[in-house]
């Protein structure tokens, strides 16, 4: 019976090829969009995720407070992180060695950097030798600066992957040759001791010139220190022993900073803490929202496709009223007729969905091959597409099929 019904459905689709194709179009577009968007969205999310995994999730970033935030006091230099804050945190972290692993500042200064005759805009980041433990800085040539260089505020620098290309030229030989050369910043000559591998992505050190924090503060920033508070820091990074200690660590850091900044009880924090897990969740959320939105549009397209199917099935029932009458005279039950038309609707939606999925798979594989992304097809998306198409076939085919099933044989036979 089922085989017979499917065969009959295929026959009737074949009899109206162009009409069937037009009817399927909504489902084709919806299914292909769904599969393509979910696959590419997943791939994008995977990449973002990887760049975070790189950084490690066992760290907390401390950022200056937002002067525009609710409850912020209106003072010059509100929320900025000072050397005093850093020192207080450093003392605190040293007393909890089971929670904290490392603490480094990030002192950011926009500068002009020159090597030989080339001069570029760049960002100097002053930090500690522990920076590698909290940031992804894979050193490709040379080495990172040492604890003693850091302590001495030595005139050394590690160049980001793009900075070195801008200053010394592209290609591995130029990068390797950069080690041992000199970069001049604000009149200070710094020895290049290492070059970081270019990583790409928004969180890499590609665009940065890394120097010891003291070097940045004393030699490069010069008189940019704020009176009384020491040089402001763009952030302080704290590495943790384990991810499970994030909450505990955040409480300790908050308390230390509130004390150090003499915040009254009840006053809002004039600093911000964030962990990569947090940022990751935000980014995931954004990506998810975009993917979800497009998927919603795809879903709407599927529903519109379903309405198209309902429309054409209503036409088919009217066109084939006589046929229905004949079938009933020959012994078809209401359920036989219902089944026939529902299966026909399902056949349209499933074939449409398969065509859509097929084109989406081709597109996604082509993009993956071009971008070197590997296997990014979302199989759940394919399953969702098929299930959705099936549901639409049943949902939108049911009403016309029910109308066909309930036709009285005599009226159907007399229909001209």
């Amino acid at each position, binding site marked *: *019976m089922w085989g017979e019904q499917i065969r009959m459905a295929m026959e009737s689709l074949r009899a109206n090829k162009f009409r069937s194709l037009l009817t399927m179009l909504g489902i084709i577009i919806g299914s292909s969009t769904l599969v393509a968007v979910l696959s590419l969205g997943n791939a994008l999310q995977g990449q973002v995720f990887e760049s975070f995994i790189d950084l490690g999730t066992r760290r907390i970033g401390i950022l200056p407070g937002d002067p525009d935030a609710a409850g912020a006091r209106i003072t010059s230099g509100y929320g900025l992180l000072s050397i005093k804050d850093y020192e207080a945190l450093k003392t605190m972290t040293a007393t909890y060695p089971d929670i904290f692993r490392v603490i480094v500042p990030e002192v950011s200064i926009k500068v002009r950097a020159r090597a030989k005759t080339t001069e570029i805009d760049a960002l100097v980041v002053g930090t500690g030798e522990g920076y590698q433990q909290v940031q992804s800085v894979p050193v490709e040539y040379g080495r990172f600066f040492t604890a003693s260089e850091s302590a001495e505020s030595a005139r050394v620098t590690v160049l980001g992957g793009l900075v070195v290309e801008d200053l010394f030229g592209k290609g591995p030989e130029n990068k390797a040759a950069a080690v041992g050369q000199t970069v001049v910043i604000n009149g200070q000559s710094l020895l290049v001791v290492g070059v970081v591998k270019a990583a790409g992505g928004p969180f890499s050190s590609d665009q940065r010139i890394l120097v010891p924090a003291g070097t940045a503060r004393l030699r490069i920033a010069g008189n940019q220190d704020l009176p009384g508070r020491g040089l402001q820091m763009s952030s302080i990074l704290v590495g943790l022993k384990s991810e499970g200690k994030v909450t505990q660590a955040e409480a300790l850091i908050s308390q230390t900073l509130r004390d150090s900044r003499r915040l009254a009880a009840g006053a809002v924090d004039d600093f911000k803490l964030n962990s990569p897990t947090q940022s990751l969740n935000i980014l995931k959320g954004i990506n998810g929202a975009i993917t979800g939105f497009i998927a919603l549009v795809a879903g709407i397209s599927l529903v519109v496709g379903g309405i198209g199917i309902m429309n054409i099935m209503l036409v088919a029932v009217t066109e084939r009223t006589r*046929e229905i009458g004949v*079938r*009933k*005279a020959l*012994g078809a039950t*209401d359920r036989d007729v219902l089944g026939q038309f529902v299966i026909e609707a399902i056949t349209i939606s499933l074939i449409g969905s398969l065509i859509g999925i097929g084109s989406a798979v081709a597109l996604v594989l082509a993009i993956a091959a071009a971008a070197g992304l590997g296997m990014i097809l979302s199989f759940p998306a394919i399953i969702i597409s098929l299930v959705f198409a099936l549901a639409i076939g049943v949902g939108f085919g049911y009403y016309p099929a029910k109308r066909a099933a309930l036709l009285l*044989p*005599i009226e159907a*036979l007399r229909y001209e």
Partner: protein
Amino acid sequence: MSTPVISVSNVTKVFDGGDNRVVALDNVTMHVDRGEMVAIMGPSGSGKSTLMTVIGLLDVPSSGRYMLDGIDTSTLDRDAQAAVRNQKIGFVFQNFNLLPRLTALQNVALPMVYGRIPPAEREARATAALVAVGLGNRLKNRPNELSGGQKQRVAIARSLVNNPEFLLADEPTGALDSRTGHEIMELFRTLNRTQGITVVVVTHDAEVGKQMDRIVSLRDGVINMDALHDYYGIATDDHGRVRTAVQEVVNVG
């Protein structure tokens, strides 16, 4: 005497279209025994088509009783009605009503699809039925590749394929030329004589009526003649009904 195949007792059918209330059948009683060849005749509007739809279980009477092969049809729900149509009635229509996208074989097999008969048996029986009506060489042709007479033969094969209690033919020669129509009537006669199949033909055509054994004539929803004849125009009576010459009946129509 065995149970009549068709037993219509005091059947009335009223079509209530608001202002115009039409009594299509008015207290009609008639019976058909196994092996009979009966023509139901009458001019248009006489109620013969309505009687056909009642006998064919395509419509239900407003009142009265219709026993089909001993089954009280008023007790049947829609599914049971479909099953009875499938198993006990073989329909033949004026305009053949073959499904255009199906081959002759598939058309003939269709009642067996609804009878839930396995595909292999369907094919064997449908083939045999087509051979029996002389279309053994037209199995794979679609209706648009067949002549009118061939289409009606396919339809007759289809009506026979589930071994029904009776064939119910509605103007079976209406869309055919007279020679082909005569051949179709000969086929009915052959089936009746050789296999004892009960045939009920609804027609307004006197020539068709003449080729049947018994004529039931309606006018204005009432049976005004129910006569047997022996093909030579002389009626014989074994039902206690009116004895008359067929020519007279035909004149009524």
